[in-house]
């Protein structure tokens, strides 16, 4: 599969950068894994980590585990619902403060 670098990233000085110049090691990938999974890195760093994870057998399980873990956490959203009585109570208090719904 061809690797397509983002066209806006790192202006090339004298042609393509050698692979090594933009590759990162496992320590660096792992250090940035959470930031990467959270989409909190800048574009060149996102690409660096993505590329490392695509090719590194050692780091792949970390990334997979991290993804599954974060997905399970996101699901907590659906498990914690506000009791209907709380909504009624809040709407009642708001109406006393002058709010008219609809």
């Amino acid at each position, binding site marked *: 599969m061809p690797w397509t670098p983002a066209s806006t990233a790192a202006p090339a000085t004298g042609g393509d950068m050698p692979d090594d110049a933009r590759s990162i090691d496992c320590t660096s990938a792992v250090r940035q894994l*959470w930031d990467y999974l959270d989409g909190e890195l800048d574009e060149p760093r996102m690409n660096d980590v993505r590329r490392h994870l695509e090719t590194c057998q050692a780091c792949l399980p970390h990334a997979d585990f991290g993804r*599954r*873990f974060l997905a399970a*956490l996101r699901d907590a*959203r659906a498990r914690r619902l506000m009791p209907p009585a709380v909504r009624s109570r*809040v709407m009642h*208090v708001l109406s006393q403060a002058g709010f*008219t719904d609809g």
Partner: protein
Amino acid sequence: MSDPRADGKAKDEGFARDAIPWMDDVYRFALSLTRDPADAQDIVQETYLRAYRSWHTFEPGSDCRRWLFTICRNAFLRAHQRSRHEVDVIDGDAESVAAARDHRAMIDDGTDRLLATLDLGPALDRALDSLDEPFRATVQLVDIEDQSYEAAAGILGVPIGTVRSRLFRARRQLQEQLRLHALDAGIHGGAGHGGRHA
């Protein structure tokens, strides 16, 4: 000439459209702060009353949920007389490296595979409840309510680096709880879960 009645109607329409739909989210955040459903209800009520009264300060088109979370956090601080300034001494980078070490241990002892076969929901909910403040609120905002580090920092009134280090520490604690859960399930669940081979 502005008609006060028409203004009031526009205000209520805006509030109903932009603020009311986030009540579940505000409740979840309030519950993560208080851990007590009755206290959470009080905080949600206070949040919405304050939001309604200061609706003129809300910037139309901006992120209303984030605005409500900030009001909610302040309502909690007032109600519980907490200090706004808490000092953290955690290092986010050290936490990410430690997290990787923990993953490795889980992969090596098979708990990683066990976790893939288990319903993580109930165990994760218990683990979330066991987190201390300020870690719980940070996880709630970023991992459950999908706020960016920057948004969470604004809501919690701390630097982004603090959000990051709290988040990573909290995730590591959650993962440790899950590992214990997996070990427990592996032991009591018996064969078939692909545990360690002798």
